[in-house]
């Protein structure tokens, strides 16, 4: 089984993203920061399952999104990572790309816009 990880310290964003992509048929796992996500990903992989893709925020306590992507790339080089954030500065976007992100979507997002990116990444 392949999971979509939704990583954001905002419960509203996590629930809103899950609501938007729930019909894709993938199980969704929520995490509230990078540390929490890495623990849950280790559990998923430990059970023989895998990650279809990650959708993550940038500014989070404990472990931010850019650090998470760097750590995630050490254990998974291929699963796409979409950054979903209010950050729009070129330096931040470049840092995300250099860390191994696959895409960067600036909030607010339109439901169809997020769906089409996620479908493109997982298929």
């Amino acid at each position, binding site marked *: 089984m392949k999971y979509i990880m939704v990583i954001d310290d905002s419960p509203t964003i996590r629930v*809103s993203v899950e609501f938007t992509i729930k019909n894709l048929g993938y199980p969704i796992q929520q995490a509230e920061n990078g540390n929490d996500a890495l623990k849950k990903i280790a559990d998923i992989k430990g059970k023989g399952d895998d990650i279809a893709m990650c959708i993550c925020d940038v500014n989070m306590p404990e472990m931010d999104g850019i650090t998470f992507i760097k750590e995630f790339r050490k254990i998974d080089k291929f699963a796409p990572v979409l950054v979903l954030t209010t950050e729009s500065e070129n330096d931040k976007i470049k840092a995300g790309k250099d860390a191994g992100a696959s895409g*960067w979507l600036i*909030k607010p997002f339109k439901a169809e816009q997020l769906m089409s990116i996620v479908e493109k990444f997982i298929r």
Partner: protein
Amino acid sequence: MYVIYPGEYFATRADCVLGTVTGSCVCVCLYDEVKRIGGMGHFIVPGMIGTEGIIADEIAKQGITSMEYLIGEIVKLGGDRRFLKAKIFGAGYLKMINVEMGGIINSNIRFLNEYFALERIQVVREDLGGNFRRKVYFVPITGVAYRRLQKRNEDSSEFIRLEQEYIDRVFKNKERYGKVYIFE
């Protein structure tokens, strides 16, 4: 004192005062008591929110994003969303508004209630509605807020003009969404 104009947000860990005047817009003051970091945002959700609630509503996403900008700044300064408390002001039904705008102001009040419930952020002071403008002062590191009702429009004529310009701008651009960058 830092003045927060309509559409702006600002967070700081400095011992200072943030101030604004709000009419139909909402003024959200957030503070992390543990880390002594806080901030203020002044915005409006530009439309009516549907019956499915804010997580399924495209217009509500504009309000969620306004909140994300403010909370993001607090988190960047070292604050933690889990420790935040809120004081919220504004959403006044001013005399010149029409029925549609009255519905939008109701939606803004509903947005705040749903948003803070979902975020599990405690609202320690809620001063919304009524038919007057409010002048709000906020000390971000302590969370102390002062609110004064504006009896005369002349007292804040500059804010009235700026708030109306901001409202016109966000209503015109309410279908605007963020850019996408694909790296592979």
